[in-house]
């Protein structure tokens, strides 16, 4: 009897292992396709992973080990950084099980390299990955955080570049907020974050009257005018909204705004006009070769104006605007010159007509003369 029960026990154990293998075939497949294909189940599941903290520490057991990570060329400071992040603080200080740990962004059994387009941490997938929690209104309300940031981001110019144009260098959530050490950027940091890509704009902004105010913390250097998550492509229209936020009752500053925006508007309109004029002349078949080179030059100056205006200093803008104005004027003069030559052709018609009328009269007179000769 005892032998029988011993045998049954063995059968039950063997069957359970077999059935587990059958049921969890998906897991084995996932692991086989992941970066951890070489690992065994027990490599991670040796201990109980009952809390998020346990997960973070289990991952770090390998990923913080320089010797182990070295062959893969991977950094080993992720956990250290994670602990400085808001997520990490919540988890390690308040044992908050809602926060994201390694597996929430990188996956569990199906962890892929970040470079892989299927990875949840691949740039184009980042907004969705963050949005899994940060778009959840119920969850976010617990922390008094807005839940529309990802939706806002999706309307932004950055998202347009990333998701529609496939520009992987366009910023995602983590470009500004960080990844392992994720924190919201402070007033002082924003310029550094934006200025990483928009180098020239930041340089010029540092020369503007707002720079001091920003250092004092009263001005959020890029965000105050351009906004954050739902950032749009900047245009002269921005002056109408952005400046009045602070200077609505400040006619002196609004005058500066009008001067700067007027200058840029004028330069843009002049350039567009010249471009259209040259385009029409080219279609007509006039020789616009030199003007096209000049136009390219004017375009450079107008584009420079749009960047230079970050100084908000007329002295910086005026020489460039003047240069572009002169270039555009030269293009227009050139085209007008060619058009005048075309009109000259119209005037040349008169002698041509006179000659042909004369010839017609001579032909006709000769014809009459011959007819008279024939019938004397």
């Amino acid at each position: 009897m005892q032998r029988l029960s011993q045998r049954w026990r063995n059968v039950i154990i063997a069957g359970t292992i077999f059935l587990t293998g059958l049921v969890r075939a998906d897991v084995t497949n996932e692991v086989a396709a992941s970066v951890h294909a070489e690992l065994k189940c027990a490599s991670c599941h040796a201990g109980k992973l009952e809390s998020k903290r346990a997960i973070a520490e289990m991952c770090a057991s390998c990923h913080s080990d320089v010797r182990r990570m070295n062959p893969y060329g991977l950094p080993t400071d992720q956990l250290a950084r994670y602990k400085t992040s808001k997520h990490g603080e919540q988890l390690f200080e308040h044992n908050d099980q809602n926060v994201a740990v390694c597996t929430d962004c990188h996956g569990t059994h199906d962890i892929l390299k970040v470079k892989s387009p299927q990875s949840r941490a691949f740039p184009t997938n980042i907004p969705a990955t963050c949005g899994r929690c940060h778009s959840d209104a119920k969850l976010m309300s617990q922390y008094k955080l807005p839940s529309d940031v990802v939706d806002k981001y999706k309307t932004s110019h950055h998202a347009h570049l990333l998701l529609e144009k496939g520009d992987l260098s366009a910023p995602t959530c983590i470009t500004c907020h960080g990844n392992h050490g994720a924190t919201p950027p402070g007033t002082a940091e924003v310029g550094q974050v934006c200025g990483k890509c928009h180098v020239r704009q930041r340089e010029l902004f540092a020369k503007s009257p707002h720079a001091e105010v920003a250092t004092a913390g009263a001005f959020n250097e890029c965000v105050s005018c351009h906004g954050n998550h739902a950032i749009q492509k900047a245009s002269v229209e921005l002056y109408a909204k952005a400046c009045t936020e602070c200077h609505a009752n400040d006619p002196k500053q609004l005058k500066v705004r009008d001067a700067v925006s007027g200058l840029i508007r004028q330069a843009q309109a002049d350039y567009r006009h010249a471009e259209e004029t040259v385009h029409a002349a080219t279609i007509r078949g006039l020789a616009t070769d030199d003007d096209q080179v000049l136009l390219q030059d004017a375009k450079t100056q107008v584009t420079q104006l749009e960047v230079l205006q970050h100084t908000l200093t007329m002295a910086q803008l005026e020489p460039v605007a003047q240069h572009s104005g002169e270039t555009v004027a030269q293009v227009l003069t050139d085209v007008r010159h060619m058009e005048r030559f075309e009109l000259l052709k119209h005037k040349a018609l008169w002698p041509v007509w006179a000659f042909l009328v004369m010839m017609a009269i001579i032909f006709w007179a000769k014809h009459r003369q011959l007819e008279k000769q024939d019938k004397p």
Partner: protein
Amino acid sequence: MSLKLPNKIQNWLSQRLPVETAEQFIDEQTHKPMPEATGFLHTFGSLSLFLFINQVVTGILLMVYYRPTTNTAFESIRFIMTKAHFGWFIRGLHAWGATLMILCVLIHMIRTFFMGAFKKPRELTWVLGVAIFGCTVTFGFTGYLLPWNQLSYWATTVGTEITGAIPFVGPYLRTLLRGGESISGETLARFFVLHVVVLPWALTALIATHLFLMRVQGLATMEKVGEEKHIDEHDAVPFFPHHVLKEGVILCGLLATLITLIVVWPVELGEKANPLVTPEGIKPEWYFLSTYQLLKYFPKTIGLFVSLIPQVLLLIWPFLDRTPERHPKKRPISVTIGVVALLLAIVFGFVGYMSESTITWRGQRYEIDVRGVPHHSETKAAPHSN
């Protein structure tokens, strides 16, 4: 007027060539008596011939700089228009000359139709004339692509698309015509070959035969078939110099028109062909407009056959209208058919010209659809700003 060559050359030549016969032939041809009634309306044939010569000469000149490849065609036309001296003028002569040539051939045909000049014994001359007309229009179609600008590219796309509607062989024919599935460098190359080699020689042969028949049979008069009076040497007008002088007068008018058109409405360079951007409201040249509009009212294949009817009728007309009368007043039925056909062509052409455009009439805006039906458009007229 006979050729006056110095005696030595004359002797040298006559020992080697039948100079006497040639002189006699030239003399006969230049002094060929023409009926007294030969008026200004009879000059459109020679004007067409003059314009053909103009096309050949200016065509050769354009070919000096033109390069028929997709990378160079447009650029070489731009060179002709902007760099080569008088290039704009020579291109103008060629482009406007083509339009005027088609117009002159048309008027010549219309005169021949209403004066009954196609009747016995000149049926073959008429058939050849219709072939000449077809050749001229094909010239226009192939030549339109060569500048390789947006208009030429897309008008040719639409034009060659029609051949695809022919049952069974249509798609193959279209591929053959285009040298591939769509208009490409291959199409440009074969249209160029057609335009500068095949068609010029074909048209030269057709014109030569047409002129030969005209000279052999003499010009038609308005008398009934079989009752033509023999041309009286004393009443007749010699071709040279009398009729030529008359043609000279008309030629002056034609040249004045041509040069005015070139200067006042210069031929555009346009934008380089871009297979990825279809411009709006693509329309064929005016001489295709009526057929183009007609095609819109029928399903593809049926439309093609309907549009073929006038062309077939034109070709076999002398064998349908076989009454001996030539004077239009005595041929009420055929004259009515002719007038109705002309009016239809003009109406269809006009509707085709107006279709897919917006007009303002008595302060109201109307959008004219593809079929030429105007629709009153509401206040959405304001141009949207960016």
